[in-house]
């Protein structure tokens, strides 16, 4: 199933938007992180500044999100992780409200109660989760709901290679296969669970090998290539929609930033990220689009500045939003 020009352009624009978003947050994140009261010896104060709390950025993983979400409808759901901005943006989460949430503001998706690891946008059926592997069975449940309702929706569990060593992963794959549910498990191998490499944590070379243990197809996308992911995800999602059950995909992606912003990354070989960027998925697609004449240089420039402008609008929206009223801390424990 070859990507159409429209699909290629959609993926290109989304990937640009994600990259621009993450690179912008990476800088905004340090605003106010060195308040005058900071203790001597600390590099910065995680809880201070424009973006409070930890920050896990997804730059380098855009192709996974774009290659999957290009096939999705609003009623399809995505269940992500602590590092899920790429899928949120690709799924069409409201970027202004997402940014306000990340800033802890009242106009955020969750009125400032969730933060960047816990973004919920029911309008496009997106949720993400701060506990590694915890969201995987949620996708299975969404797929079960789709099956029981007969509405044709598909659920996506997106997670990292580290999550594939959690029990929730294995329980979820077994159950989804047993019940032939319309769910696709998208494992993104960025080679690191915080500091521990895949080799040091995982008994199999590729998690795709584990698919056989649950009697489902496994597809390996061995390069950080959105066109290849588009094909793999297209097959898996079509299978799910046909009622033929789940698929496990493992895609090679790269994590350009640290586990969290400010991570000294002592565990990473020097120059690794620079080397990884030689096969950057956005540049790869951009080259292809230029070579095929789908885009010209002017259009590339235009696309890049449009992404940048869109991100600036979102940042401005978040800056302008107010913090929630103190009384809201005690609200929303239960649905009314």
């Amino acid at each position, binding site marked *: 199933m070859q990507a159409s020009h429209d699909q290629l352009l959609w993926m290109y624009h989304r990937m640009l938007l994600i990259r621009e978003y993450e690179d912008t947050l990476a800088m905004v994140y340090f605003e106010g992180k060195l308040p005058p009261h900071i203790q001597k010896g600390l590099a910065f104060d995680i809880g201070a500044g424009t973006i409070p709390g930890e920050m896990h950025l997804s730059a380098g993983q855009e192709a996974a999100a774009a290659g999957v979400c290009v096939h999705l409808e609003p009623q399809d759901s995505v269940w992500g992780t602590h590092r899920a901005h790429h899928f949120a943006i690709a799924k069409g989460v409201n970027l202004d409200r997402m940014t306000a949430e990340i800033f802890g503001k009242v106009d955020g998706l969750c*009125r400032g109660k969730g933060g960047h690891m816990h973004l*919920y946008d029911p309008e496009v059926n997106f949720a993400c989760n701060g506990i590694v592997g915890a969201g995987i069975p949620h996708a299975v449940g969404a797929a079960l709901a789709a099956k029981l309702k007969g509405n044709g929706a598909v659920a996506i569990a997106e997670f990292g290679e580290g999550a594939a060593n959690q029990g929730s992963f294995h329980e979820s794959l077994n159950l989804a296969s047993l019940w032939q549910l319309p769910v696709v498990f998208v494992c993104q191998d960025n080679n690191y669970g915080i500091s521990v490499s895949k080799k040091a944590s995982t008994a199999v070379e590729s998690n795709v090998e584990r698919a056989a243990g649950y009697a489902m197809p496994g597809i390996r996308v061995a390069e950080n290539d959105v066109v290849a992911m588009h094909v793999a995800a297209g097959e898996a999602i079509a299978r799910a929609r046909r009622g033929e059950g789940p698929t496990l995909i493992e895609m090679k992606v790269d994590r350009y930033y640290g586990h969290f912003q400010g991570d000294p990354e002592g565990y990473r070989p020097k120059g690794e990220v620079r080397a990884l960027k030689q096969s950057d998925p956005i540049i790869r697609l951009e080259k292809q689009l230029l070579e095929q004449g789908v885009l010209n240089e002017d259009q590339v420039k235009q696309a890049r500045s449009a992404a940048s402008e869109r991100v600036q609008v979102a940042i401005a929206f978040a800056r302008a939003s107010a913090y929630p009223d103190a009384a809201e801390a005690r609200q*929303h424990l239960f649905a009314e």
Partner: protein
Amino acid sequence: MSNANTAAEVRKLPFYMAMVEAIRQEMARDSSVFCLGEDVGQIGGVFQSTVGLHKEFGAERVRDTPISETAILGTALGAAAQGMRPIAELMFVDFMGVCFDQILNNISKTTYMSGGAVKLPLVITASTGGGICDAAQHSQTLHGYFAHTPGIKVVIPSNPYDAKGLMTTAIRDDNPVVYLFHRGLLGLPVLNFIDAQFATDVPEEPYAIPFGEARIVRKGSDVTIVAFAQMVHKARLAAAELEAQGISVEIIDPRTLVPLDMDSIYTSLSKTGRLLVIDEDYLSFGVTGEIIARVAENLGRFTLKAAPRRLAIPDVNIPYSPALENQVIPQVSNIVEAVESLMNNPL
């Protein structure tokens, strides 16, 4: 649904059948309600908590699952977030240990973390309680863990009438509800281990009992006993003995731990001035301490005549041998002694 029965002839049902009737009626009323869990399908649950439903509604809506508690609760969450109303059974509440992350970090937190944007209308059911020599891993009640976690409602019925009405409310609630049924109260032939009424009047028509409204089990004037589930029945037996000594006991069954009807307890204390809280969960950092702490914070509303007392599992695990199990689960004799000491030790 009306019938020609007179009040004296109201139908009697055991606890488990009353609970199942509520589920059946809600499943018939609302196609989004479905059941999942280990053995809940074909055999109707090892405690018959879903008996007959698989036959009536089929395998799609009454789903036997693998032994995968994390997947069961995680699946329930995902389905609830997508508009379904799952009832997920954990069989033994002890098995919450296998899937606590889904309870602690996911089911209890989703609505709050989403700022109210996501609702999770789901029910977790589990059997609880000791008294049949099932030892430390199959005898706990653990309701304190759930109640300690913000974002979960906790229901602990003590009799068939409440079992039905509270289950109806649990299923209709738009929030996660943990519904705990005590094995000793179910009315199953092999588990009749409490000298208490197993079948009570249960109307056939659907009815819902609001959460947070205690039931006054017995009126009295000298001592207030607060008790849940099995302990309600032990308290009744103790109260009958104490009556013979001329001590009048009022028993309050809060029925739900979250929300908790403290006002009924305060009202009773205004009359009696003496409090005994009985729990089958662990003693320290638990339900008995919480209730007494709230009483302490409201001392201006009544005058206590004695220092409050509590009975619970005394911070040990539940042993196997009947000679030992009886030592840690509060017994009728312990309740009688505790009430006597309340009467004999004025402030």
